[in-house]
């Protein structure tokens, strides 16, 4: 563990969140609270609802019941609350989702200028700062298609950081990458964690979970099955489903 966040205030809280896709119950009474500076790793089999869960936090998905609060702002579906929350929550996607018609630098300056009203000069300064931090400043004038997957994902991280979010959500950030590029992205994320960023990561990188997570949460069939510190989670999982999952996933590493 990098820090003990036990005395920090709660940044995100989910209470009894329910999500349905038609007849499919995607999230079943999810309750979760994340303190400032905490790093959470969410894992579980595909279709278990882990991506849906983090996508609900920044309102990319709507919820049917329950309550989501981010930094005191209740997510009530109003434009105002959605805007307020998205300003504070950054997200990194599995498929990067960089804007292909813009350079790396433009990808990073767009949101600060449009959302925060930052001047062009300041937005560029900010972008260069975060591109430097993910060690990709030398590619600033290139277009996403000219970069490798690992580089694109680091740009996506920088783009999210340019909004200076209080929380970063990672939705399987290394799943679409070639194996040799996973490390550069994980290293960037570890760096972020060291700097005290609050993070919720959906990932199957158990090495990353061991090294960085304060808590590992295991989900299956839309429920939180088990949640524990990584030490305990990996050494002595309580539930059979967790054991099965860990057996499967660790066999590949």
């Amino acid at each position, binding site marked *: 563990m990098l820090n003990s966040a036990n005395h920090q205030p709660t940044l995100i809280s989910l209470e009894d969140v329910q999500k349905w896709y038609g007849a499919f119950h995607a999230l079943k009474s999810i309750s979760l609270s994340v303190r400032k500076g905490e790093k959470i790793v969410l894992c579980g089999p595909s279709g278990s609802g882990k991506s849906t869960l983090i996508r609900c936090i*920044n*309102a*990319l998905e709507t919820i049917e019941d329950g309550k989501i609060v981010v930094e005191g702002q209740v997510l009530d579906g109003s434009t105002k609350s959605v*805007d307020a929350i*998205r*300003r504070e*929550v*950054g*997200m990194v*996607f599995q*498929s990067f*989702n*960089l*804007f*292909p*018609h813009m350079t790396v630098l433009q990808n990073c300056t*767009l*949101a600060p200028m*449009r*959302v925060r009203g930052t001047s062009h000069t300041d937005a560029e300064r900010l972008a260069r700062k975060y591109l430097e931090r993910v060690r990709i400043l030398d590619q600033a004038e290139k277009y996403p298609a000219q970069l490798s997957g690992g580089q694109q994902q680091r740009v996506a991280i920088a*783009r*999210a950081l340019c*909004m200076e979010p209080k929380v970063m959500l990672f939705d399987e950030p290394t799943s679409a990458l070639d194996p040799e590029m996973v490390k550069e992205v994980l290293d960037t994320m570890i760096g972020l964690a060291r700097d005290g960023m609050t993070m919720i990561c959906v990932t199957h990188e158990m090495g990353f979970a061991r090294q960085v997570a304060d808590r590992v949460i295991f989900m299956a069939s839309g429920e939180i099955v088990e949640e524990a510190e990584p030490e305990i989670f990996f050494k002595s999982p309580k539930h059979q489903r967790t054991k099965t999952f860990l057996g499967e996933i660790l066999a590949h590493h």
Partner: protein
Amino acid sequence: MGPIGENEFFFLMQGLKWTVLLAIVGFIGGGIFGILIALLRTSKTKVARTITAGYIGVFQGTPLLMQLFVVYYGVALLGIEVNAWIAVAIAFTLHASAFLGEIWRGSIEAVPKGQTEAANALGLHYVSRMKDVILPQALKISMPATIGFLVQLIKGTSLAAIVGFIELTRAGQIISNQTYRPLLVFGIVGAIYFIICWPLSHAGSGLEKRMAKAAR
């Protein structure tokens, strides 16, 4: 049979001028309203989607010739005195906006969903999301189809003759009637259309090939 001399050729060029102007006006007017149609067609509001779907359906499902008639006489019925030029410009704008709107609707929907999600996650609002992220990509996707429609529109301007508009085809008809050389005259008229349309078609298919390559 009369000769086809400088005067006749000049008359055809006069017609060509109107053909080109009409196509440009139709394309620009249709482009402006077409974007609006495309945006409404892809909006969250069901009413807007239904109304624009109906609008597109009507203009795609009826002959352009009939649309020209309806606008030309319809405007007159409203008691507004308009010349053929205005009426035809309105008709072509309406016609083009329906077709371009539908082409661009498809292109907007062809932009990967992840782009909208990324823009949303960054907190970008509708206007910026569309203007900065979605439309530039959609417009690029739509280029071959858009150019294809422009070619159709240029040829479609010949129908404006029906309400007394002397564009290229009508000019050809008049010359043909004067000189009794229909084959020669319409051969020239056809060649003029071809010289304008073929490079456009060619550019369109070139774009399509380049994009297919880039997508691989």
